[in-house]
C-alpha cells in the first residue's frame, strides 16, 4: 500500500503566504551575513568619540578615512597586498593548472607521488607551517621580503587548488585532446591549445579564489613580514596599541580592504559559478 504523506506546513500555505515566509527567511539569512559588514561600515563613519556609542549618536564623519589615507605605511601595505596577491595568483596558476591537468590525465609513479605529496601537505594544519617557515625565511635571508611572503603563498595555493583544477579537468572530455594529438599536436600542444581554452572559466574561478585567499590571509603575513613589507591585514590589526583600540581607524582600513575583494568577487562571481559548475 502506498503511503499518503500529509503535505508539510509550508506546502499547505497559500502562495502569498509561502512567498512571504520565503522572503522573511531570505532576509534573515542575508541579514545574518551582512550585519557585521554593515556594522563595520557604520563604525568607520563614526567619530572616534562616538565609536562606543553607536546606538546614541547620529554624527557621521569621513575623518577616519582621511586619517588612514594619510598613513604612508598603510598605503604601502595596500600596494604590497595587491602586488603579492596578483603575483601569487599568476605564479601559482602556472603550476596549479598543469599539475591539475597531470593529476587528471596521467596515471603512473610521477603522478601518484605528486598526488601523495600535496595530499600530505594539505593534511598538515595550516598553522603548523608558520613557525618552520619563519626559520626557513630567516636562514635564507628572505624574511620580510616579497619573495619571502610570495613563496609560501604559492606553495599553499598549489597544494590546495591543484585538487580543484584536477576536478575541472576531470569534467573536460579527454577525447578532445586525443583528437588534437591526431590532428598534429604534441602532448603539450594538445594541453595548451585545446584543454586550456576549455578550462578558462575554471581558471578564472581559481584566479579569483587565489587572489582573495592571499588578500585576506593574515597568519603568514603576520609571521613572515615586518616593517619593510607591510601587508594590509597585519597593518589593520596594528591599530590595537598600548594607547588603546582605534576601532574607527581599523574599521576604515577594513572597509577600504573590503572594496577590491568585493569588486573582484562581484565581477568574478559569474566565472566562479560557471567554473565550479563544470
Amino acid at each position, binding site marked *: 500500500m502506498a503511503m499518503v504523506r500529509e503535505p508539510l506546513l509550508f506546502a499547505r500555505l497559500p502562495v502569498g503566504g509561502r512567498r512571504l515566509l520565503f522572503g522573511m527567511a531570505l532576509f534573515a539569512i542575508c541579514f545574518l551575513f551582512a550585519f557585521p559588514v554593515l556594522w563595520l561600515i557604520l563604525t568607520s563613519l563614526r567619530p572616534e568619540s562616538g565609536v562606543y556609542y553607536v546606538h546614541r549618536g547620529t554624527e557621521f564623519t569621513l575623518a577616519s578615512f582621511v586619517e588612514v589615507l594619510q598613513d604612508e605605511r598603510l598605503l604601502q601595505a595596500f600596494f604590497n597586498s595587491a602586488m603579492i596577491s596578483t603575483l601569487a595568483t599568476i605564479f601559482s596558476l602556472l603550476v596549479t593548472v598543469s599539475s591539475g591537468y597531470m593529476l587528471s590525465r596521467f596515471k603512473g609513479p610521477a603522478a601518484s607521488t605528486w598526488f601523495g605529496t600535496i595530499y600530505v601537505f594539505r593534511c598538515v594544519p595550516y598553522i603548523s607551517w608558520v613557525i618552520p617557515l619563519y626559520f626557513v625565511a630567516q636562514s635564507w635571508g628572505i624574511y620580510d621580503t616579497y619573495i619571502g611572503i610570495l613563496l609560501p603563498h604559492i606553495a599553499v595555493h598549489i597544494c590546495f587548488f591543484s585538487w580543484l583544477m584536477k576536478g575541472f579537468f576531470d569534467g573536460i*572530455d579527454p*577525447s*578532445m585532446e*586525443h*583528437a*588534437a*594529438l*591526431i*590532428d*598534429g*599536436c*604534441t602532448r603539450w*600542444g594538445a594541453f595548451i591549445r*585545446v584543454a586550456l*581554452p*576549455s578550462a*578558462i572559466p575554471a581558471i578564472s574561478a581559481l584566479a579569483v579564489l587565489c587572489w582573495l585567499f592571499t588578500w585576506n590571509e593574515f597568519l603568514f603575513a603576520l609571521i613572515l613580514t615586518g616593517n619593510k613589507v607591510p601587508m594590509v591585514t597585519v597593518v589593520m590589526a596594528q591599530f590595537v596599541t598600548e594607547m588603546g583600540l582605534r576601532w574607527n581607524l581599523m574599521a576604515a582600513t577594513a572597509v577600504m580592504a573590503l572594496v577590491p575583494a568585493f569588486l573582484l568577487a562581484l565581477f568574478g562571481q559569474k566565472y566562479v559559478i560557471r567554473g565550479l559548475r563544470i
Partner: protein
Amino acid sequence: MAAIVLSKLNKHYGSLHHAVKDVDLEIADKEFVALVGPSGCGKSTTLRMIAGLEDISGGEIRIGGKVVNNLPPRDRDIAMVFQNYALYQHMSVYDNLAFGLRNKKVPESEIKAGIDRAAEILGLHELLKRKPRQLSGGQQQRVALGRCIVRNPLVFLFDEPLSNLDAKLRAQMRIEIKRLHAQVPTTSVFVTHDQVEAMTLGDRVVVMRDGRIHQVGTPLAVYGKPVNKFVAGFIGAPAMNFLEVTIRKEAGTVVAESPVLKVAVTEPSSVALEAWQGRRVIMGVRPEHLVLGEGLLSRSFAAKVEVVEQLGSEILLESRVGDARVTVARVPPETAIAAGDQVRLSAQPGRLHFFDPESENVIAA
C-alpha cells in the same frame, strides 16, 4: 597505398587485464572494416592502438607498409571520429576543420579550398561560423567527419561514432558514412557494438570477444557461416535460437532430436554430423529461417506461443519449445495468432547450424 596490418597485437593493462590478445588482421587499401563485439571485447583498444592513443604491449602495427608502433598519433597520418564528436568547443566549425591543416602549415588558401570541398560533401556550409555547442548531435558528427576528410589522411578510424545519436539519425548517418566512403575511398576501421552498423557498413566484419578475433569475413559470410556459437548469436537480430539436441541416424537419415522435437538434417550438414551420432550438440536456427506451419513434416516441431509482437511489416513470435525459448521472425503480419496458441514450426532446409557443446565451434552449417 594504405593497407593496415596488425600482427600478434597485444595489450596488457597491468598484469591482470589482458585486453587484446594476439590480434592478427590485414586490412586492404581503401577497405572498410567494421570491428564489432560486446563492450569490453578489446575493439576500441585495438582501434586506439592503431591511432597511437594507447601503447602497444606486444606485436606490430603497419600502416602503408611502415611500422608505426613508436610513432606518435600526429605522425601516423590518420584521422579519427569519436563517439562524443570531440570537437574543439572553443573554436568555430571552420577553425575545427582547419585545425589539422594549420598544424601542418598548409597555406590558408589551400585550407579554404579543402574546407569548401568537405563542406560541399557534408552540407556544412551554413554551419561554418557556428560554435560546436550550437549544433545538434547529428551536425556535430558531420563536422567531425569533415575534420577527417579535409586532412586527406591515409586512414579513417571511427570509434562508435553513431552511439550518441538517436535511432533515426543513426540510420541517416550510417548512409552518410557509406556515401562518404564511396566518394572519398579511404582505408577505414569502424568500431561498433551494434551489429547492424557493422553489417551495413563493413566490406568485412571482424567479430571480437574477450580480446580475441573470433571471425573475419564479409557480412554475408559472418551471417551465413558463423564459426562458433558466439558469432552466431551475436550477428543477426533477433538473435539465433539455440536448442540442445542429440544426433541419431534413422533409416539412413541423420536426425537431430530432443524430447520435444525431431528434425531431419539434410546434406551437407548431415555428412559432418555422421561422426556425432549418439552425442549431444547445440542446434542453432535463426528466427527468420523458421516458418509457421507444417512445412515438411520431417522438419517441424510443436511450440507454444508466449508473446506476439506486431511490427506492421511482420510479426515476431516468442514461443516455447520444451524448456527453450524460440523466436520466430517474418511471420506475415495478417496472421491470426495469439499468446497461448499451439503452433508448429519448421526450419527452412539448409538453414540449421550445429555447434560442439564443449568448444562451441561450428560442426556443420
